[in-house]
């Protein structure tokens, strides 16, 4: 009887994942897709070499405090050590949550700024001053502080008139649904066609260790 009972967990374990990068993580919940097949929202949200072995997709909401932590503390060293060196390709994805009142409009401003080549600057400003505009809703004034008047006017025009500005957000939300996203921030690490979803703000030193192991495995 005892040996029969012991066989059950052994059989279960045989199907469990052992190596972190090759196992069937989220196999049931996330259909495996080739990295190349991942739809790219807009080029301004993608950085790094297309031949990088790993793609890190980051789903954020401009009004979420943990996303701010990720954006301010984790992404800069990730970009410097992995994206700039061609090891990782980084893709920003928008995932505005319904409970955040000003998140949608902030996303519009960031994407409009992206259309005129100012995505990084505006996204950085929005995360940096999140505590202010998430209280008073003054997204326009916040963005205006970092853009010259001419560019700011272009952004305003795009926000007001570009009916396709939300297309990328819609695509990101659909992709998030396919990734079974239930919170922000969430990282999806794509390696060898496998998508591994990591919920929550990942500390950089732990992410670094994980990426190094993935890269070492080739």
């Amino acid at each position, binding site marked *: 009887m*005892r040996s029969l*009972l*012991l066989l*059950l*967990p*052994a059989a*279960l*374990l045989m199907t*469990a*994942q*052992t190596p*972190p*990068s090759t*196992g*069937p*993580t*989220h196999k049931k919940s996330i259909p495996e897709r080739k990295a190349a097949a991942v739809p790219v929202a807009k080029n301004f949200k993608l950085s790094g070499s297309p031949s990088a072995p790993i793609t890190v997709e980051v789903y954020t909401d401009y009004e979420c405090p943990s996303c701010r932590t990720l954006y301010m503390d984790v992404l800069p060293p990730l970009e410097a050590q992995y994206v700039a060196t061609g090891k990782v390709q980084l893709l920003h994805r928008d995932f505005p949550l319904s409970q955040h009142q000003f998140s949608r409009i902030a996303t519009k401003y960031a994407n409009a700024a992206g259309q005129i080549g100012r995505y990084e600057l505006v996204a950085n400003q929005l995360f940096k001053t999140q505590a202010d505009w998430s209280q008073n809703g003054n997204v326009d004034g916040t963005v205006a502080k970092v853009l010259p008047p001419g560019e700011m006017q272009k952004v305003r025009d795009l926000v007001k008139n570009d009916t396709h500005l939300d297309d990328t957000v819609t695509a990101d939300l659909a992709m998030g649904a396919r990734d*079974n996203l*239930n919170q922000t921030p969430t990282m999806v*690490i794509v390696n060898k066609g496998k998508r*591994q*979803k*990591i*919920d*929550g*703000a*990942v*500390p950089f*030193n*732990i*992410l670094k*260790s*994980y990426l190094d192991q993935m890269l070492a495995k080739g």
Partner: protein
Amino acid sequence: MLPANPKVQRMLLLLGRLLLAGIFLAAGYLKLREPWLQFAVSLNSLKILPDNLLEPVSRILPWCEVALGIWILSGIWLRWSAALASLMLAVFFSVLVRSYAMGLQVDCGCFGSGEPLGPKTLARDALMLALAFCVTIAAFRMRAVRTARPPADDSHPSSLPSGTEQSRPA
């Protein structure tokens, strides 16, 4: 505390043992199915471990849970395996209560990711802790009853409650 009927005692202890083993096996298995990075993020959000311990703990703890589940399932030295389970669950529960009291919006991380910490998860963990305590106490009491029996009774090991150490060293 224990029912008078030895058969009922045996059945209850076996049931508790299987349930407790199942909990630990499921907790370990579901964590192992995910990348260790996910569990490290859950541990980090609880703010209980220094950064340098996040990786080793997130790699080792799920295997420890599986090992403990198998140990409990085997019934070998049940009182000690159940006591260890109680201790582990007491530590987990304290950490979760602390995080909840601090108002941290975190993932429980008990059975893999995607389970926010809240009253429901705390109540479930409290029940698991109570179960572990009950199994531990029952295993110790049955062991005490067995050792207190007259020598003649020891010649009938088949009458011993399942889950106690029939032929194992004390």
